[in-house]
């Protein structure tokens, strides 16, 4: 049961595959639960990637994806599979597994009729998988429950099969058992997909419509747009219109990924593939838009997606200010393939010129920063992640604040902050520590249910600001790595928030201002002033380091004046060394920033902004 014969192949050729021979599915899995490895085995089992061409995580294109073992951008691969002598075309639409990229998951799911729910047989279902499962169930997708890594010594398939069966309401014996490592169970899984996932529906004769579910910038080919055709057929050289943006393009190339791009004559109803139109900016080929034929346009677009909204904000600054134009160019380029990234220029007294950037979450921030540094050779400093607040001043004006320095002066009526509904799944012995953590982070418990005898699902409403800091790390360390977290936006709430400024010799250092809960203001002030005292070199004069809410000083440290800075010995053999030392210091001085009269090395800012374990 591998590849079909040539005559058989023609039955599943792109543009002429009947709906009944198409299966569209995605894989829902937690990070590390082996989705990419299972996908690799499917590529091999269906024969589209020969063993000799195989590399691990074949579909993960970015270095960062391979190194971190995560998928950031979704992909669609067409694979032939024969059951009872009948050939089928399976489209596997990959989904990212991290909470930051949930919007990508829902996009992928909208292009499918079925989902493989893949769970590690040694770990059981995790919070993010659960939320993706709910997304799939909401979309009426057929779920195929699968336990992976059954070859692991720690695997406990019976226990987790029962858990999965409980969750989706099936019999534990319906839960398939596979090993992405050995390939065991993979052909059976492909058979199950053909048998259980319903074929797509669509109308061959209706005016063509296709949903854009991803749009990727490629340096050589321009924007590659991934589509799922619903009605009609799209062919190369067709003129098409984007129904929402109104933009018109010509299809220069149309095809399927198998898994390398493979041009085809067209894509018919129910089929998944890509088009290339020569546009250079992903915003011209917007995810969620509907493509239709210019000559025979459809009247109503398909339901689309909401634009992803940035949740976490951070200032990105080049360490060497000469790299500012390079940073701008790099962001412009990244934006071509990452529609969720938003940024605008920003100036900081401490850090110079940079950009205020909005991200989907912390991982998104981390990945963008890493890509900027790695792919564009930039040295960056990122300010502490912040969320977006609304502040109403006494005069009634409401300001949106994504940067503490925009916090209005004077009397404040109220401040509201974004909150999320968080789900934590943990073994029951860690319920205490998890509750303690959530309470420390101003969480309100909503409910708690037992997934099984040993595993508990906790629901909390938490301020987003409390999560973006180091919540996930803390959660992991308090549960020995067992707990998993998922959250979704749940509006805003009023809270007693204040802006804490950090002053050096009376001058505020904008990069260190923070919006924190009044109860935490004092400890933030004490922590930051102590940190800066340690990091800022002594000056010719005493330098007070203060934390203040408005005009009220809440913490104070003092950097004593420098008394001695001279090399004791300088004889014949020391002169060259001494001079070189001096030249090095001089080069270092270029990285000094002057706040008032205080000279602060850039490294001090970087160190103060980097947040360690001891910071909470």
């Amino acid at each position: 049961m591998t590849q079909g014969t040539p005559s058989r192949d023609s039955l599943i050729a792109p543009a002429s595959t009947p709906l009944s021979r198409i299966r569209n599915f995605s894989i829902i899995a937690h990070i590390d639960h082996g989705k990419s490895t299972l996908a690799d085995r499917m590529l091999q089992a269906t024969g589209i990637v020969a063993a000799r061409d195989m590399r691990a995580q074949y579909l993960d294109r970015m270095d960062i994806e391979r190194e971190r073992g995560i998928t950031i951008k979704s992909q669609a691969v067409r694979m032939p599979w024969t059951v009872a002598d009948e050939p089928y075309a399976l489209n596997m639409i990959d989904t990212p597994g991290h909470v930051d990229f949930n919007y990508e998951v829902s996009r992928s799911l909208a292009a499918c009729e079925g989902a493989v729910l893949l769970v590690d047989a040694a770990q059981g279902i995790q919070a993010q998988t659960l939320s993706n499962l709910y997304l799939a169930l909401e979309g009426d997708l057929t779920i195929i429950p699968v336990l992976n890594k059954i070859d692991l010594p720690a695997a406990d398939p019976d226990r987790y099969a029962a858990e999965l069966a409980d969750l989706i309401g099936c019999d534990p014996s319906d839960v398939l058992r596979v090993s992405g490592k050995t390939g065991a169970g993979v052909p059976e899984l492909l058979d199950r997909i053909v048998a259980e996932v319903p074929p797509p529906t669509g109308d061959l004769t209706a005016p063509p419509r296709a949903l854009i579910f991803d749009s990727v910038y490629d340096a050589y080919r321009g924007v590659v747009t991934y589509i799922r055709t619903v009605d009609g057929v799209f062919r190369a050289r067709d003129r098409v219109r984007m129904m929402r943006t109104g933009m018109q393009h010509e299809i220069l190339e149309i095809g399927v990924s198998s898994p390398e791009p493979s041009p085809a004559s067209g894509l018919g109803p129910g089929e998944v593939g890509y088009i290339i139109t020569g546009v250079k900016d992903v915003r011209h080929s917007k995810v969620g838009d509907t493509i239709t034929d210019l000559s025979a346009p459809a009247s109503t677009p398909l339901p689309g997606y909401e634009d992803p909204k940035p949740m976490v904000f951070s200032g990105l600054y080049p360490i060497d200010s000469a790299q500012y134009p390079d940073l701008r160019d790099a962001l412009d380029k990244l934006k071509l393939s990452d529609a969720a990234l938003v940024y605008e220029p920003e100036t900081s007294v401490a850090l110079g010129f940079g950009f205020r950037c909005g991200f989907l979450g912390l991982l998104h921030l981390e990945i963008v920063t890493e890509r900027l540094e790695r792919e564009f050779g930039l040295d960056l400093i990122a300010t502490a992640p912040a969320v977006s607040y609304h502040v109403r001043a006494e005069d009634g004006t409401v300001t949106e604040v994504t940067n503490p320095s925009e916090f209005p002066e004077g009397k404040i009526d109220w401040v509201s902050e974004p909150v999320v509904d968080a789900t934590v799944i943990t073994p029951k012995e860690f319920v205490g520590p998890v509750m303690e953590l959530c309470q420390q982070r101003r969480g309100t418990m909503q409910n708690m249910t037992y997934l099984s005898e040993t595993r508990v699902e906790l629901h909390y409403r938490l301020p987003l600001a409390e999560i973006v800091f180091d919540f996930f790390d803390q959660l992991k360390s308090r549960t020995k790595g067992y707990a998993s977290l998922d959250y979704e936006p749940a509006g805003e709430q009023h809270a007693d928030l204040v802006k804490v400024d950090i002053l050096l010799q009376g001058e505020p250092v904008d990069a260190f201002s923070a919006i924190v809960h009044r109860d935490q203001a004092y400890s933030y002030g004490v922590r930051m002033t102590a940190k800066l005292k340690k990091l800022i070199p002594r000056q010719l004069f005493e330098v007070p380091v203060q934390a203040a809410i408005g005009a009220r000083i809440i913490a104070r440290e003092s950097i004593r004046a420098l008394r001695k800075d001279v090399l004791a010995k300088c004889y014949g053999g020391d002169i060259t060394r001494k001079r070189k030392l001096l030249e090095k210091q001089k080069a270092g001085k270029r990285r000094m920033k002057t706040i008032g009269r205080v000279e602060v090395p850039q490294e001090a800012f970087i160190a103060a902004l980097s947040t360690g374990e001891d910071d909470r």
Partner: protein
Amino acid sequence: MPHPDPEGEPAPRNGVVPGGRTPEHFGVYVHVPFCSVRCGYCDFNTYTASQLRGFSQTEFADTAISEVRFARDTLAASHAVPRRVETVFFGGGTPTRLPAADLVRILGSIRETWGLAPGAEVTVEANPDSIDAQGLRELAAGGVTRMSFGMQSAVPEVLRTLDRTHDPRRVPLVVRAAGEAGMQVSVDLIYGAPGERMEDWEETVEAACALHPDHVSAYALIVEPGTALARRIRRGELPSPDEDLEAAKYEWAEARFLREGLHWYETSNWSRDAETRSRHNLNYWMGGDWWGIGPGAHSHVSGVRWWNARHPAAWAGRVRAGESPATGRERLDAQTRYEEWVLLRSRLSEGLPLAGLHPHALAALPGLVSAGLVQAGAAQQGLLVETLRGRLLGDLVVDRLLSDQEIQGYN
């Protein structure tokens, strides 16, 4: 582990200096790389007997004399023959690990080669326990005019921290003997050893003053990377130096030396009068020329600086083969010479002539004066002379003078 050599260009085998000219002032330094024990703080190029690997102390004098001959030929070929030698300095290591006769023989070859100026200063460094009255008389008879004793501290605990083996009670004996032999006397002190209290340092300074030396050098202990001391501090066995306490010690010493009639003339050096300053060291600081004999020694002739192979065996091999023992050198361009001039002259009581400063350095001057780092009166006379506070912040003064940034906002 001594600190690494500077990066430079390779030195030619014949050692010839391009653009050589007759030195205005010329000194000879002889590096004697032997010690009985390795002190924990020391990163100098020194070796105990067990570390010499195929090189014997007895070969040193002959090899050093061979390098003197090589120097004679090289300077001649470079058109940089000194008119005479004004100062000779035997440093180390512990030069007095060698028999006095060896030192006298090396000095003799220097005298024969270039001639010693009338009243030439010839200094030998010694540990108080490495020499006695007899040895001192021999040195004086052989032409040595000045002894520099490594006293370091009067407090036994501090000496132990520094790995110094001598009995502090020996110091007055050798100082007196050197004086009786007709030589000038300098003592070296170290402050800021881990655990040294203010009282310990006061006791040391008192003891040094009681010797009525002609000259004192007092150095803050530098924790050099790679030394045993640095390791012990890193492991937390010893506290790291407290710069505020060091500043207080310097200030205390300055006041006490002044009462003793010892006047500051370089950041870490005090002397009774102009005649008892170390002329050899002043030659370094004034940008003069010198040839450094011995393993790891640096030389400076006609704007070229070079450094010899560090291990005694490697150095000796090259010298015996008639090659330059230098392993690297650098040619000082105008900018480098300017930087060194600022760096070295600003440490001297003689001061830095303002006439030689670049405009942006002059622009920094008012700030340095108002910050109390530079003497206002001297500045009006056209000289940059550091105040006591400025001496303690000398690196910062140099940094301001050489900084190309706009200087503003001082107290």
